[in-house]
């Protein structure tokens, strides 16, 4: 056994070309399945959200102008935030940052939603990205006022 190549020939594991190409194919399959899982999770969430009914969040007078309310919609695992930007203007978004799902918080002074994890900034007006690593805006909910109560529902594509 030489010092430059300290592996004995009989102890070396031999990989055939076929085994190597099989490994490449299986790696590609694994990447595809991972992508399918991630995309499937997002599509499933979207489909499930579109099928949920509107939910009451709070009474209009419970939230002052410039204030906010936290709630969960459509399930207990989906944190959302309702903002009152003006007397008659309410907006609601998913509280999960579009980057890595940290909860965003409302800054009334700057009228922005801030992610404390990686300093992502979103506009409170429409949820679009202003700064930071997120590639897309916050998921918006449709807000309606019924008998002095604020209701939310998922935005449908149509």
């Amino acid at each position: 056994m030489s010092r430059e190549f300290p592996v004995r020939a009989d102890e070396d594991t031999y990989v055939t070309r076929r085994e190597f190409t099989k490994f490449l194919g299986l790696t590609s399959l694994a990447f595809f399945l991972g992508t399918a899982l991630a995309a499937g999770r997002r599509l499933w969430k979207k489909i499930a959200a579109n099928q949920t009914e509107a939910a009451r969040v709070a009474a209009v007078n419970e939230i002052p102008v410039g204030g906010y309310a936290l709630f969960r919609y459509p399930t207990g695992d989906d944190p959302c935030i309702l903002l009152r930007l003006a007397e008659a203007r309410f907006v609601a978004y998913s509280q999960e940052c579009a980057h890595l799902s940290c909860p965003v918080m409302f800054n009334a002074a700057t009228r922005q939603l801030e992610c404390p994890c990686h300093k992502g900034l979103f506009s409170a007006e429409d949820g679009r990205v202003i700064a930071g690593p997120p590639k897309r805006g916050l998921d918006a909910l449709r807000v309606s006022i019924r008998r002095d109560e604020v209701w939310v529902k998922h935005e449908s594509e149509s």
Partner: protein
Amino acid sequence: MSPKVRLNQRMRVILNMVTALVVMILLTQLWLFSVAVDAAPKIAAAALLCSLAGLAAVFALIRFFLKAELSA
């Protein structure tokens, strides 16, 4: 150089070319995975389709290599 050694070297060159192409596709698939994780549903679906195309290309390249090896 014997014909067997020459053939072996040729197959090694082909395998290197196939490997280079497959590695490029694998890196693209890895990037598509990162896109699908935090993209909007429509973009995630597009990433999934592209990843499927990549998988098909990898299998086509492997098939091409194995066919070349068999015919050699």
